[in-house]
């Protein structure tokens, strides 16, 4: 294998759960895998703070369990994909997602793009509904999620 292939095999093993390349100490690579996952989860929590909070102190576990086999796509997309797979359980986290969905168009496979047209997104908050209205790139929230 070339140096480029050896480096690629190592990164695959560390971030997508692929097999550990021969010759490496498995316990040390496993510990590195966990450390990378903790860092990745903490970075996603910076970009998606309400989503992370909605997991009641178990965010790193929840994110790690989901992301273990997924290549990192950057904190914005990692958190977004997670939120679409696990619809947020708190009104605050639902609002955070609705604000992102109103501001960016994200097809789940390519980088999110800023929306050019106005949109409305509804957010279920307890027994009421709030609305996120985006026009000209700015969002307004009608109603309360508290």
């Amino acid at each position, binding site marked *: 294998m070339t140096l*480029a292939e050896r480096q690629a095999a190592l990164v695959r093993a560390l971030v997508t759960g692929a097999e550990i390349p021969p010759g490496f100490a498995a316990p*040390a*690579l496993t*510990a590195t895998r966990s450390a*990378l996952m903790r860092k990745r989860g903490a970075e996603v929590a910076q970009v998606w703070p309400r989503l992370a909070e909605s997991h009641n102190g178990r965010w790193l576990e929840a994110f790690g369990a989901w992301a273990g086999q997924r290549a990192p796509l950057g904190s914005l997309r990692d958190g977004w994909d997670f939120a679409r797979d696990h619809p947020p359980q708190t009104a605050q986290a639902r609002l955070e997602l609705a604000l992102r969905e109103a501001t960016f168009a994200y097809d789940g496979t390519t980088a999110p793009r800023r929306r050019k047209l106005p949109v409305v997104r509804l957010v279920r908050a307890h027994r009421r509904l709030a609305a996120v209205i985006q026009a000209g790139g700015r969002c307004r929230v009608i109603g309360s999620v508290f």
Partner: protein
Amino acid sequence: MSSPLAGRGTGIGWRPEIAGVAADLPGLRFTEVIAESLHSGVPPALSALAERGVAVVPHGVKLSLGGTDEPDPGRVSHLAWCAEVLGAPLISEHIAFVRAGGLEAGHLLPVPRTREQADVIVRNVLRVKESVSVPIALEPIAALFSWPGDELTEAEFLTDILDRTGAWLLLDVANCYANALNRGEDPLSSVERLPLERIAYMHVAGGRSADGYYHDTHTDPVPREVLDLLKAIPGAPPALLERDGAYPAAEVLKSELDAISHACGHPVITS
């Protein structure tokens, strides 16, 4: 030849969360900023330090100098821009790779210590030097694992790269401590084998033990043993505290800075 930061004593890594602490250090003469954090310009609090005569070193973390692809021209020109706009005396990056085969690792990964890998790093560093007008310092990283089939010792690998590129050494004593501990080596004798005469400045950081390893977290207190290592470095090179989260009260950071100054024999910067 003396370091571009010679005589600048003890510094602290500039982060927005602790900008107030940095601004409040009367003796501060150098700091460092993560180059990739300056994509939307230089924060006014950092410009204010530069105007006060504090040397600001742009510190790259995503250039991937160990990667087999040549460094991304956009990333290189961003580093050059950082150096220029901050009036930096030097820039720094790591002996590491952060991406390969189209995947981002999300952190600095160790490279194999082979001649082929050394050639790749030398080529990449020389490419950066073509575009950046100030010297570069290279930082060996902390890692929990090494590659199978190393051809060179850490000291040989590092010396070869520094000799062929003319780069300075950014010695992270916390990384040295972490690596030695995790490999079951004596930290002091591993440090003493390195080309210490090439040090431009040093990094100091805290860490913690977990799962049978010492992790260089930058979010924990600096251990006594790391301060002791500082005392063993000849020539009192400048030393910079890196803190990257779980920020403690200003007084705690200031007492760590005092401890570093004391260990290195630098003037106190906190009063």
